[in-house]
Each structure stands twice: as structure tokens, then as C-alpha cells.
């Protein structure tokens, strides 16, 4: 893409160093600068991620041997998998790449100075932190949480733990998500710089745009569902409680009407980031730009119509089950379109295997496994066999950790020099990537097999015949965690002592690479104008 940033000078203070109205920590938590808000989201999300990882580590350790290993009380195990789920889902992958990198790069990529509603943006972050605080506080007050992250009724109505407060926390988090979504949709519609047509928007912007729509349209359903459970617990209005005439399956419907689209909130921006990384490191125009952009919207649409595939064993009608199974197979099509286009982009490209690209390639591999195992569960007969086993857990981790997680780390390595103006040690980053990739597969592929053999999820104890599998999986978790810690350590060191990064270390052509690293407060010296396609590489054009 040709970006005209006439009169750009290097002399502008960047967003990290400019003098704001407040100093110190206040210059961050009261800043309406989308870049600072993006960084704050990133830091808070990664912190929650590490907490979630620690809980996962303890869970795997407990499963090393049958019977009690490190946890003597099974209720503590229930609490740990609940907290692991709540933190990882609501505080890490749902805000995922949209709140962090979306905030930081969406305005830059369309040549805007900021988002449409900067103050609302800051409010979203505050609501996120308040919601996180309430949710976590609820987990440590009033007994050990034991509902799992799905809060299924009637158990979540009957249990004596502090579920009402947890639900309220998630309700607030939903509000934050909605405000971010409507902010980004308005930004994309109203704030594009001259020449930034819809057909020229980088694919990450398209992904963020589609995701924002899901956030707007799906999150309110979760809001009302949680509100009804709260009313049920406090007043006993009897909408879900079978003892009072309610229908618990209705809860499952309403919950998954949000929570299935929510997995696309988690994965779509990740796919957007992959669509940025791959052309840059293959030095090739993305293959099938329109199809990748359109498939984001198609996923947003079809993804909203498949929720009941979580409920094949919950007693829904045969006719409904067949329809939802069919729709589930259909939603795989746009995802596959993306994968084919990425692979076609690589074909005859000048591929450079640097850390962001390695993460992107790992994403394609792991996401494909996650996608295929998802289809297996979409098949009605097979789902009866696989329901509530480790197979489901492993599938979900392949999609969410192997997919969104690896894409987020890829995006982090891709945009780190742009965001902080410093380079990390690429060798260590590569070693960390290798450890994570190997550890991930040892852990979760083993869990796929174990689930196939019938190991149920969420069990504290198991039959001795599964032990060798559990040992392998637990060792895998150690390798994986070693990789994660190495990666985080490497980036933290780079933040302090990394070499100064050039403005465009990877030779990218999307708009963010034409401003300085880190970007100035208003992103560009003057409003840029755009011409040409988003992924026109000069070298390729010459060829």
C-alpha cells in the first residue's frame, strides 16, 4: 500500500514519552490515547493469562497420579478449574486481540488519530478492570467456586457459593465488551483517512470490524441471561429453576446464543493478525483478499446460528439437532477458506522464518487440528461418544490456545518493535516458540487421545488405566510453561534493554509501518492519504 505521509518528521514526541496532563501511573489509567489503552489491556490480559497458566499447571500436576496428588480436597480442584476457565475465557481470550492490538492498531491502520469515542474507550478499560476485580473477588469470598465457567442452572441457582457476584462481574465485563464493539464499528465507518476505501482496509481491520459486530449483537443476550440467573438467585422469579416452573434448557440456549459467537469474538481478530503476518514474511500480496475479508463477515453471521451444537445431549429435538449439525458444518467453510488463502499466499513467496512467522505457521497447524476435531463433535452420533470428555477440552484448547493464543503471541512478536520501539532477541524467541509448540502438542494431543478413550472432563480422580497418558500430558504442560516463561522473560528484557527498533523491521507495507516506532501521539504527522492495495509489495510488483 502506498501511504503518503507528506511532511513527516522524526522529531515528534512518541506516545510513550510525550507530556500528558497527568504524570506517572495516572498518565496511563486516565489516558484516552488508544495506544496507551491498548497497552494497558495487553498488560492486564497477559497478567491474567499467567495466573490462568499457573492454575492450569496445578491442575495438570494433580492429574499426574490417580487419587490425591497435590490437592487433598476435591472441592479445591473444582474451584481451580472454575477459576482457570473464568479467567482464561472472560479476562484473556474474549478481550483477546481486539482490546489490545485492536485498540492500538485499528486507528493507525485506517489513518485516524484515535477511535471515534476516546473517552468511552477509557471507560471500557475501567469497566473491564472493575468487572475483573468483582469476578475474582467473588471467587475468593463465600466459599470455593464450583460452577465451572458456564454457570449452568439449576446448579448455579442452588449452590451456596458467591455465584451472584461472579455473574455480576461477568455482566460488567460484557458491558465493557459492548462499548468497545460499538466504538470500533463507528471508528471504521467514520474515521477512515482519505483514500482508505473499504477495499483497501488491512485484513486485521476487517477482522476487528466483524468481531465488533458480534460483540454488539451477541453480548446483550449474555447480559440478560446472567441478569435472569441473578434474579433467580435473589428473588426466585422461576424462569430457569425447574422447581418453580422454569426450564433449565432455556438457560443453555440463551447462554450459548452468546457464548458460541463469543468463540468467534476470540478467534476472528486472531485470524486477522495471521492475515497480516503471513504476507509480510512471504513478501507476497495476500491471496484472495476479498474472500478473507468476506469470510470474516460470513463467520460472524453463521457463527451466530450454531449455538445448539453445545446441547446435543441436553434433550433438544432431533429435527433441531440435525439442523444445528448442518449449520455447524457450514461454519467450517469460511474458516477453511481463510486457511486455503493463507497457504496459497505462502506458495512461491520469499518466506522468511522469523519469530512472528513461526507463530503464524504454528497457528495454521494447530487451528486446523482444532477445527477438524470441532467438526467431529458437530457430527451428531460421534458427539454422544465425545461429549464431556477430554476430547472436548483438548479441541477447545487447540482452537483457543493453539489458535488465539499462538496468534496473540505472533502478533505480540510482530508488533512489539512498533509498539515499544525496541527489538527482542530473536534467537530466544525462536527457542521459546519451539518449546511452546512441542509442549502444546504433547499436552493436548495426548488429551485428545485420552478423551477418545473415554477420560471424562472435570474429574478429580481417574482409573489407573489412564495414568500413562496423564503422565505424558503433565510433562507436556511443563515444556509448554517453560516456553511461555521464556517468551515473557525475553520480551520483558527487551522492553528494558532491547536494541532500538527501526520503523519497519520486517518490511511490512500496511499503514502502521509508515509511521515511526513507537508512533507519535497523533499516529501520523499529518493525516495520511492512501492509494493502491493494502498488500502491494514493491519487490513483487517489480517481478
Amino acid at each position, binding site marked *: 500500500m502506498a501511504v503518503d505521509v507528506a511532511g513527516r518528521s522524526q522529531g515528534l514526541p512518541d506516545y510513550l514519552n510525550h507530556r500528558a496532563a497527568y504524570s506517572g501511573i495516572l498518565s496511563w489509567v486516565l489516558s484516552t490515547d488508544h495506544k496507551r489503552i491498548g497497552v494497558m489491556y495487553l498488560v492486564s490480559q497477559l497478567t491474567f493469562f499467567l495466573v490462568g497458566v499457573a492454575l492450569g499447571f496445578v491442575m495438570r500436576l494433580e492429574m499426574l497420579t490417580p487419587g490425591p496428588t497435590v490437592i487433598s480436597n476435591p472441592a479445591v480442584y473444582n474451584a481451580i478449574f472454575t477459576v482457570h476457565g473464568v479467567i482464561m475465557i472472560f479476562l484473556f481470550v474474549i478481550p483477546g486481540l481486539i482490546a489490545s492490538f485492536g485498540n492500538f492498531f485499528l486507528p493507525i491502520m485506517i489513518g485516524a488519530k484515535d477511535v471515534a469515542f476516546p473517552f468511552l474507550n477509557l471507560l471500557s478499560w475501567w469497566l473491564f478492570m472493575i468487572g475483573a476485580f468483582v469476578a475474582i473477588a467473588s471467587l475468593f469470598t463465600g466459599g470455593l467456586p464450583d460452577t465451572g465457567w458456564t454457570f449452568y442452572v439449576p446448579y448455579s441457582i442452588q449452590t451456596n457459593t458467591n455465584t451472584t457476584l461472579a455473574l455480576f462481574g461477568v455482566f460488567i465485563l460484557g458491558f465493557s465488551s459492548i462499548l468497545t464493539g*460499538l466504538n470500533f464499528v*463507528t471508528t471504521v465507518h467514520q474515521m477512515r483517512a482519505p483514500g482508505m476505501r473499504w477495499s483497501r482496509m488491512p485484513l486485521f481491520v476487517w477482522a476487528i470490524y466483524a468481531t465488533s459486530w458480534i460483540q454488539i*449483537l451477541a453480548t*446483550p443476550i449474555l447480559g*440478560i441471561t446472567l441478569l435472569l440467573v441473578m*434474579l433467580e438467585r435473589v428473588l426466585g422469579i422461576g*424462569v430457569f429453576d425447574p422447581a418453580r416452573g422454569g426450564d433449565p434448557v432455556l438457560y443453555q440456549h440463551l447462554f450459548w446464543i452468546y457464548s458460541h459467537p463469543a468463540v468467534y469474538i476470540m478467534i476472528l481478530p486472531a485470524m486477522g493478525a495471521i492475515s497480516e503476518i503471513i504476507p509480510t514474511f512471504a513478501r507476497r500480496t495476500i491471496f484472495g483478499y476479498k474472500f478473507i475479508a468476506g469470510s470474516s463477515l460470513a463467520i460472524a453471521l453463521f457463527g451466530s446460528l450454531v449455538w445448539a451444537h453445545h446441547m446435543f445431549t441436553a434433550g433438544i429435538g432431533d429435527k433441531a439437532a440435525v439442523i444445528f449439525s448442518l449449520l455447524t458444518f457450514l461454519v467450517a467453510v469460511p474458516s477453511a477458506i481463510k486457511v486455503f488463502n493463507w497457504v496459497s499466499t505462502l506458495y512461491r513467496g520469499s518466506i522468511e522464518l522469523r519469530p512472528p512467522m513461526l507463530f503464524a505457521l504454528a497457528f495454521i497447524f494447530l487451528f486446523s487440528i482444532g477445527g477438524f476435531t470441532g467438526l467431529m463433535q458437530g457430527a451428531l452420533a460421534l458427539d454422544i461418544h465425545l461429549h464431556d470428555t477430554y476430547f472436548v477440552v483438548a479441541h477447545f484448547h487447540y482452537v483457543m490456545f493453539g489458535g488465539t493464543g499462538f496468534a496473540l503471541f505472533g502478533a505480540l512478536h510482530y508488533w512489539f518493535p512498533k509498539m515499544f520501539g525496541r527489538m527482542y532477541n530473536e534467537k530466544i524467541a525462536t527457542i521459546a516458540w519451539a518449546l511452546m509448540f512441542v509442549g502444546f502438542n504433547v499436552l493436548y494431543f495426548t488429551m485428545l487421545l485420552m478423551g477418545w478413550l473415554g477420560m471424562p472432563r472435570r474429574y478429580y480422580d481417574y482409573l489407573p488405566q489412564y495414568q500413562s497418558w496423564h503422565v505424558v500430558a503433565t510433562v507436556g504442560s511443563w515444556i509448554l510453561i517453560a516456553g511461555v516463561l521464556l517468551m515473557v522473560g525475553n520480551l520483558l528484557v527487551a522492553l528494558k534493554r532491547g536494541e532500538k527498533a527501526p520503523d519497519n523491521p520486517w518490511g511490512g507495507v500496511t499503514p502502521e509501518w509508515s509511521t515511526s516506532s513507537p508512533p507519535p501521539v497523533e499516529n501520523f504527522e499529518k493525516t495520511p492519504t492512501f492509494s493502491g492495495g493494502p498488500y502491494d509489495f514493491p519487490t513483487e510488483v517489480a517481478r
Partner: protein
Amino acid sequence: MSQTATPGSGGQAVLREAEHHFDYTGRKLGMWLFLFTELLLFGGLFIAYAIYRHVNFADFHVAAKDLDLVLGTINTVILLTSSLTMALSITAMQKGNRKLAVWLVVLTVLCGLAFLIIKYFEWTAKISHGIYPASPELMKLPPGEVRFFGLYYAMTGLHGLHVLIGMVLLIVMAVVIARKPFRVHSFRLDDADETMAGARPAIVDGDGKPLWKGGIIDENVEQVSVVVRLKPGPQTIHPSDYVSLENAGLYWHLVDIIWIFLFPLFYLIT
């Protein structure tokens, strides 16, 4: 009133508006998106209603007879009237009639208050008859009626909360309109130090006759700007003066339209 800045040296001073870029369409778009989310929030409840009414058709029919149709109808009329006063208030503001706009907003808030008071009497009457969620009286009724009243309290309760939020929003709007009569525009004159040194700023009329003259711009002056304070009147009204009121109005109409659906679904299905 025409405002002109005349740099004495005749140099090419650039007028630059320092105020943040105002995007009318963006503000409206953001509000409409928010209203979508509100519709979907209630949508979940309407789905629950649709399912349970389908399953317990007869019970819903019987239970609806317990609601007070007269009070419900009065409330519907009140809310519809409030939507009228809201719309009138926005039109008044668009035409620059600030005073009338404030009074119409106040009238709208009073309608909302009347609605809530009547709702309060309806609820307390029900509760005094022992019909409230999880009450022993209610539990004796068939499950369909329990569901009806559960949904009745949840839906009218959430709607009432929205009326309350709307009223707070409108009170804030009334105060803002009443207290902040001026729209301030600040224009920075660039290159003040070079081309305007030694000049004297002035306001001139159409014939070039000076209406007002300022002091000399000497080396102590670092920045020259023109500050315009505009009173929103019939001639000077600008979308930024009424976009917030319009958005608050949109919210109020949403609250109204939700009631338009709640009223027949609970009161008129007997």
C-alpha cells in the same frame, strides 16, 4: 455577528480550529448501535416469553386477567405523551428555542415519574395480594402462571429501571441545556510571531469600518487566537448543540417502544 481577524501586515495567517473534530453522524451511529444492544437485551426476555406463552397458553391467559388494565392503559397514554414532548423538545432545540426545549424536557421527565408512580401502585397491589416471585401464594398456582408473573416482574422491572435511567439522562440534559448557553469556538492564528508582529487585531464590519480594535501584538505575545462565543439561537444553532439531546431522545423513544410491546403481551392477552 461576523467575526474577522485582520492581521496588520497582510500576511497569510492560517485560521485553525483548535476544538476537537465534531462528527455528527458518528455520534448518532454510536447511539443507534447502543440501542441495538438494548433491543437485544430485552430480546432475550421476549424469547423466554414467547417460548413459555407457547407452552402455557391457557395459564398465561388466566394470569393476565389479574393485571389492572385501566392502570396499564393510563401508563401507556402517559408514555406516549412523553414521547411527544420529547420529540417537540428536540425540534424546539433544533430551531434554537432553548427555553422551550428545557421545559419540554422537564415535562417528559414528569411523565416518566408519573409512569413509575403508577407502576409502584400496581406492584404493591400485587405484592399485598401475595403475588410476588417465590411467594407461597404464587407457588400454589399452576406453573404457567408462576412463569407469567416471573416474567412480568422481570420484564416490567427491567423496563422500569430503563425509565429511571432515561429520566436521569434527561435531567442531566435539561441542566446542560439550561446552564451552558454558549458554544465556544477557539481559532488559533498560526505564524503569529512572524507575520503579525507589530500588528493590531480588529473586528471590521462589511464596509471595512472597524467595530473594535485590540492592542499591538508585540514580542510578548506568543499566540494569537480568536475565541467566538455563540449563543444557540435560531440563526446560530449547530448540530453539536442538540446531538446529545437527540441521542437522549432516541433512548427515551426506545424505552417507550419497549413498553408498547410489553403492554399488549401482559395486559391485553386475556
